[in-house]
């Protein structure tokens, strides 16, 4: 039987995993977008 504290810790842990996970996702999208922009700009200037 899990104690109440376990559920409280689980809730806060899940929250931080979700928020930081989404932040990592956005940073990845940003990096990919910046690489795509650099690539397209170089291709346009050639």
């Amino acid at each position, binding site marked *: 039987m899990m104690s109440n504290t376990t*559920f409280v810790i689980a809730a806060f842990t899940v929250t931080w995993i979700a928020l930081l996970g989404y932040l990592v996702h956005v940073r990845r999208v940003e990096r*990919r977008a910046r690489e795509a*922009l650099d690539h397209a700009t170089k291709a346009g200037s050639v």
Partner: protein
Amino acid sequence: MSTGAIAEPISATRTRGWTIFGWFAFAFLIASQAIAIAISPPDRDMGDLQKIMYVHVPSAWMTMLAPLTVLVFSLKYLWSRREQDDLVAASAAEVAATFAGLTLALGMIWARPTWGIWWTWDARLTSMLVLFLILAGYLAVRAVVDDRDQRAQWSAAVGILGAINVPIVYMSVRWWRTLHQIQSSPSTVAPAYVIGLRLNAFAFLFVMIYFIRRRYDAALTLRAAEHASESAALKGGAA
């Protein structure tokens, strides 16, 4: 073919400003959680489980607030066909889906020790799940439709449908007999929990604004890359 103005990637100075805001939002969240946990006494019935309210309730509020952002910018897009409005709506929808998933997960974690079950087809839980599925549908539409205008129009329609569901989610606990308690707000919770709830609600709001802005910046950069790539292809074709 898009009729809206081509979005430019955001300047480095403005990005730095939002990065500082992001640090502030997360620092405020850490402080709010610490204060709420420190000052709130155990609940008479739930004991320490009450502390889940500080993450579950603000997350639920953001799940209802973000689709309203989707609604406003979807309507703006349908009215003006300005591409930036579509990108803001799409960014808000992705953030809304994240908060909806988080709210459902936190609800299940809270339900297990209090109700004895992880899930029940209660009106509040079911309507929240429907909202999550609509938001997932929104993201699916954006992933599978290639034509930019068609994608924006179809996703705007799905976004409006999702926002229509928000008042149903909110009122579900009053319209139907539910296992879920009535809406938690500073006026319905015990005075000892009001400050913690308010602080965490603002912290989640700041984090949500930061997420939408960061995602929108990424979408602008991606759009600028697509535009540069199309221009390069046209140049290559003309040469």
